[in-house]
């Protein structure tokens, strides 16, 4: 009866999470299982995206890099034997690719992007307007941080979420702890926020 189960209905990674999920998918992907590849892509594209953006790429270039990194992974999957190394491999490869294609590090027009993302032309309730303004300042301060800080904080935010606990391990970041570098980045961000105060 157990043979009755089909790969589509009940893939070998069903119900797995974290390393176990990656290990099962990588194993299946090595023998050409497209569904396993797709599962990994769905799971980890947000990670690759954050690293690409955290390394100063504009959204379009970041998207190209995300595609390049995934193709590279599946081309070289046989070289990556340990599922525990997957997140680190993706981060390192994305970083390297971002440095290769990135023309010149420049700060992204972050405030404009936020301006588009939030409906600022609509008359908003006062509380909403205050929040939007706070978000705008936060995003601006973030965009002024050194590149290294931007990447680290993006990864820190991601690693704080249950499904990306592996990223925390990759960053050697015990749950709930903020390392010294992160502290310095956050301190810098507070200083930047403080400095904006004058122009309020």
């Amino acid at each position: 009866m157990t043979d009755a189960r089909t790969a589509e209905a009940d893939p070998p990674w069903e119900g797995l999470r974290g390393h176990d999920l990656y290990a099962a998918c990588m194993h299946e992907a090595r023998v050409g299982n497209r569904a396993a590849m797709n599962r990994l892509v769905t799971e980890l594209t947000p990670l690759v995206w954050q690293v690409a953006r955290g390394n100063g790429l504009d959204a379009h270039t970041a998207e190209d890099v995300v595609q390049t990194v995934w193709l590279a992974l599946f081309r070289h999957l046989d070289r990556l034997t340990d599922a525990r190394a997957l997140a680190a491999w993706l981060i390192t490869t994305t970083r390297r690719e971002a440095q290769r294609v990135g023309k010149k590090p420049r700060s992204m027009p972050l405030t404009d992007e936020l301006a588009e993302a939030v409906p600022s032309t609509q008359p908003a309730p006062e509380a909403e307007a205050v929040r939007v303004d706070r978000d705008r300042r936060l995003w601006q301060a973030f965009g002024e941080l050194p590149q290294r800080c931007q990447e680290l904080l993006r990864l820190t935010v991601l690693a704080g979420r249950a499904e990306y606990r592996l990223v925390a391990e990759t960053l050697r970041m015990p749950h709930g702890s903020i390392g010294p570098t992160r502290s310095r980045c956050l301190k810098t961000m507070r200083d930047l926020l403080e400095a904006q105060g004058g122009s309020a």
Partner: protein
Amino acid sequence: MKEGTYPDDDTLLAELGRVVDQVDPPPAGLAERVQFALALEDLDVEVARWERADAMAGVRSVDQGTITFTVSDLTVMINLTKVGMGHRIDGWLVPEGEYGVEVRVAGHGSSSTTADDGGRFVLDSVPRGTTQIVVYIDGASCRRTVVTPAVVL
């Protein structure tokens, strides 16, 4: 609490996380485009970059116009012309070569042609959608496959 301040690092990080999610999430359909790009028979490929003029910044999907992709020593230029529900693609490979060109469109299979000795190729009535161009370089000394990223055309 002073307005605009964050009492501790956890609060600041949580707020940053919320704003990043709001302002800079992975683009809609990105994972699907990656999956489409991966659905090649042979993944031993080089990925070309979409070279964007500054004027194009902010425009990912183009209806008409010229798009340039480059990888190391090869440039693929395509010009799109709207024809009915689809596109005509006029393409040009530099350096020129009589290479095989395949255009894959998600949900529509693919169409193939061969560039002429000037590196030019034409594909009529290519459906719109998530598209990837594959160039098969069959030179005397090497065989390579170059692909563009999967892009919405």
